[in-house]
């Protein structure tokens, strides 16, 4: 819930970032961001619901506890894992960089400079990092692992997810927000609903590892 609320605040932050400079490029970037947000928000909510259903709790510590002993959620809910990693859309980065695209002279970032720009860029990087840490905790068992202490495992997994996201993100082409919306609502959203239903059935039949 905290993650979801914080991510929702990004909607307002990015739109204001685009509106405030009174510049057309920044504003177009802000509207692109809202379009991507509309495409992404519901699949993300179903992904988070799936995690909650699997663990029987919305608390992150309970989610991690439910995975101890190897029953990592990435095995039973791979779709939700991928959808969560697509939170890159909320940092306007990688294949979802259209709101800050070079075709808009920087989009939402067109007019920002100095300390303000540093803050925005830090926030984008921080959100991507937090998303990777959340993915490690919710889908890869958090600190679950042999030999090494839990915090080390958690750090290793988080860094591995960061590396994966950066590697894949650099190799994918830029996606147009209107196309993302179509695919998100007609393909990804049904997939996440099916994913949630599968996990719910697994939980009810006692099939969760």
């Amino acid at each position: 819930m905290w993650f979801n609320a914080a991510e929702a605040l990004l909607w307002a932050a990015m739109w204001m970032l685009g509106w405030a400079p009174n510049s057309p490029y920044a504003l177009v970037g802000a509207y692109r961001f809202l379009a991507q947000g509309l495409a992404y928000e519901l699949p993300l909510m179903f992904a988070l619901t799936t995690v909650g259903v699997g663990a029987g709790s919305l608390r992150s510590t309970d989610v991690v506890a439910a995975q101890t002993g190897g029953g990592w959620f990435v095995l039973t809910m791979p779709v939700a894992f991928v959808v969560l990693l697509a939170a890159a859309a909320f940092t306007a980065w990688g294949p979802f960089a259209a709101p800050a695209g070079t075709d808009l002279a920087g989009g939402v970032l067109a007019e920002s400079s100095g300390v303000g720009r540093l803050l925005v860029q830090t926030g984008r990087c921080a959100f991507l990092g937090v998303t990777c840490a959340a993915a490690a905790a919710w889908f890869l068992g958090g600190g679950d692992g042999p030999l090494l202490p839990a915090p080390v495992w958690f750090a290793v997994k988080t860094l591995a997810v960061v590396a994966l996201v950066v590697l894949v993100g650099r190799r994918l082409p830029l996606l147009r927000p209107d196309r993302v919306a179509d695919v998100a609502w007609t393909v990804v959203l049904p997939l996440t609903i099916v994913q949630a239903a599968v996990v719910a059935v697994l939980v009810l039949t006692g099939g969760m590892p």
Partner: protein
Amino acid sequence: MTGPVLLVVLGALGALAVCAGVLVFVVDSMARATFSLLASFLAVGASLLLLDLPYLGLLVVLMMTVEMAIMVVFMVMLMMNPGGLMPMSMVHNTRGAVAAGVVVLAALSAGIWTVDWPERSGAAPPDTTVQVGEAVMGPHMLVMIVVGVVLLATMIAGLALATPRGRYDRLGPDLDRPRPDDPVDGGLPR
């Protein structure tokens, strides 16, 4: 946070919510009005968080932020005051509104101070999220399901009434066009 400190913080948040709410009707720009309203809602969400209702508080923050981010698009699109050329007011029937507001405020305040409030029996549960879930999914399950379906039907009906293009525009009079005629192509090959 307990006792007097909590009371002071809650009071400050309440004052912030009211002031931001007033700002909605004071500022001229629709963007500022929308985000003043958001500030008001966020103050309410923060008060809920302070009252040990994390789920409801975060839900308010989440829903209202997304809602305002969408609303600002329509506010700017439909109600904007473009460069002061079309000054518009956010208030109508000022005298009637003031009278109604004062009467309702007086009645509610009188109610708060004159009602004989009962003593609290029992303690707050350790996890209010579970309690909310049981209340919604237990005795009120039928109501929630019906309301959910009604909301969805309203949204679909609203879209169907509002959209200027139907399936005959997209697929031709006999609905047999191989590719729909859309002004903007989607991301799927069809």
